[in-house]
């Protein structure tokens, strides 16, 4: 039971922070199917910086945890500039742009990982080894039955995510920037008429989604996979999108969706292990979050309402 909660949380929270990024972008009116690519590229930059610094300074990779997170966020944000430029400045189809970015991220990071491994480390490897980040347990609280699991074996990044998520909530719902951002996705003309630059708002919203996705990607790399390789592209970005649709583009309900995904995943693995099934059965349990996503979408896609101006190209000069 405890492992379900512990593993579920450590999967759900990165998913959640990525979904928040998606909410920012989509609430501002930019369809964002590129989360998958952002998180992969962000994790690549984070992992690369970690192994490079470890290599030159001799610090152990496991300890470069916070540095790599910083770089991952910068990397994810940098890559998201492509989506922002394509869909805001170049007025390209936002769905096409998203798909293109996902493909490009996979191709680029795979190539660069092998190339840099060969060039810098002289190793024929397609991954950067990172290890798993350390965990901590809050002693007193961990002893509470059931809930105690929340405070047991916590990854530091989970704390970071909770802090950032609270700040993201505050920024989106309580500040000027958030008010204007949400209005941009509903009726950009009203924002424009109020003398606020819609493109700037949307640009920053997409960059925020890149930043948060990069963070999420790094979490996956430091926990589930313990390395960076093309295996980072597991469709988690799309799970995040499903979560935010299920959450009706609101932050708190989206958290619920992410938790459901997280517990479905950890629960599935737990059952497979508990029943001592042969390893091929784990494949069957792997599909749980994906099937769940489809089912949730079947029930919630139609009733939930996307931002009104989502995906529409905003042309201010139009008469």
């Amino acid at each position, binding site marked *: 039971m405890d492992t379900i909660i512990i593993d579920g949380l450590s999967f759900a929270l990165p998913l959640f922070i990525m979904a928040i990024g998606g909410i920012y972008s989509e609430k501002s009116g930019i369809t964002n*199917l590129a989360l998958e690519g952002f998180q992969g590229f962000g994790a690549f930059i984070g992992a690369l910086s970690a192994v490079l610094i470890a290599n030159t300074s001799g610090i152990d990779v496991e300890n470069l945890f916070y540095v790599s997170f910083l770089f991952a966020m910068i990397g994810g944000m940098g890559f998201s500039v*492509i989506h922002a430029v*394509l869909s805001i*400045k*170049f*007025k*390209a*189809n936002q*769905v*096409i*742009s*998203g*798909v*293109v970015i996902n*493909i*490009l991220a*996979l*191709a*680029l990071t*795979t*190539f660069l990982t*092998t*190339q840099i491994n*060969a*060039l810098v480390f002289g190793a024929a490897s397609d991954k950067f080894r990172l290890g798993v980040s350390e965990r901590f347990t809050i002693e007193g609280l961990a002893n509470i039955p059931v809930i105690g699991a929340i405070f047991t074996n916590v990854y530091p990044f989970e704390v970071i995510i909770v802090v950032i998520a609270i700040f993201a909530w505050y920024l989106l719902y309580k500040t000027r920037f958030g008010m204007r951002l949400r209005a941009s996705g509903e009726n950009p003309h009203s924002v424009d008429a109020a003398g606020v630059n819609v493109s700037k708002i949307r640009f920053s919203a997409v960059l925020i989604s890149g930043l948060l996705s990069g963070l999420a990607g790094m979490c996956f790399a430091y926990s589930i996979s313990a390395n960076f390789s093309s295996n980072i592209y*597991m*469709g988690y970005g*799309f799970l995040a*999108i*499903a979560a935010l*649709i299920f959450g009706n583009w609101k932050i708190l309900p989206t958290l619920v969706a992410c938790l459901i995904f997280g517990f479905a995943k950890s629960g599935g693995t737990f059952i497979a292990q508990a029943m001592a099934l042969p390893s*091929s*059965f784990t*494949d*069957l349990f*792997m*599909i749980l979050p*994906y*099937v769940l*996503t*489809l089912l949730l*979408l*079947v029930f919630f*896609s*139609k009733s939930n309402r996307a931002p009104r101006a989502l995906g529409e190209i905003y042309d201010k000069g139009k008469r």
Partner: protein
Amino acid sequence: MNKDKKKKSLSYRLFWPIRNEKWQPISIPVASILISFIAAAIVILLLGKNPLQAFYNLFQGAGIFPKSSYAGYKSILTDFLSLLNAMTPLVFASLAVAVALRAGLFNIGVSGQMLVSGFLATVIVGYSGLDAIIAKPLVLLVGIVAGGLMGGLVGWLKYRFNIHEVVSTIMLNYIAQYVISFFIQMYYVDPVSRQSKYISEEARLTLVNVEIANLKMDIPLGFILAIIIAILIKFLMDKTVVGFEIKAVGSNRKAAKYTGINVGRNTVLAMIISGGLAGLAGVTYYLGYFSSIQPKVLSSIGFDSIAVALLGNAHPIGIIFSSFLVSIIDQGSTYMSSQAGIRQEIASVIIGLILLFSACGAYVKHKVSRLKEKEEDRKDSES
């Protein structure tokens, strides 16, 4: 002043094909390809290698230019046939993307649809021991039906429940990948190769190691079918009521509904056709180019086909040309890697870049038409 004018006319001439709207469907993809190769050349230069040599190797590996030496039973012809063999599923897959695109849908589940139809054809026909004359058409049929059903499911989810097809196809990709991996490992695994057991030669859509004139060639039967299907799809989209309705739905769903077109039926129909084509891609890939299935891996063709379809403007004839090019990049990359010492993965980077610049093409078109409108105005006000 005079100098200025000359300068203008030079750039005017240079960019004429891009300014001319008639030529844009060709000039913009060509420009995307050129820019991508230039970008790749810069990367190769930075790695300290000679890009021209590398690109030449690429074309050698694909059987376009002759290699310096060949192994026994091999020649430029056998290389070229391998290229066509690899290109066949790509043509089908790109047509699948294109048909969906015309209906305003983004089928990025081609690789999942390929896997499902390839797996079912393998299990139903590949291990059956049927005669070639029955087995081969049956493989095609199973492919079309399995892919069509899967595509139709996506269309139905989209219409009935408003589920974005990009999300649902990705989910189905992963589900297909894991479920099929489970079945392969449980029931059909070859203990040596760790892949599914090889299918019978009778069921295979590529004739392998056919000895002609002292050469061992792979003859892709599906290639001819791919060309025929491409022409059929062109006819369907341009000349028929069905094609017109699919395009109408893709162009403006509201107007299509107002016109009396059944939007739901056409959404599902377009996805069935798209899925059926993906199914053909699947069988020509897993029961043609290969003869077994590697578990837990999705074919990269699903993604390459998006590049091909965008590059070819979702036009069947354009797709034949663009899939030829992308196949060259894919096929030649191994040889290039061995000859020039550049990582094979750069091939997918080049394809990714082509995709990126193709996506910018819409902007170029938009800008050009804006410029033209302005010019017209100037003419108006001057006269």
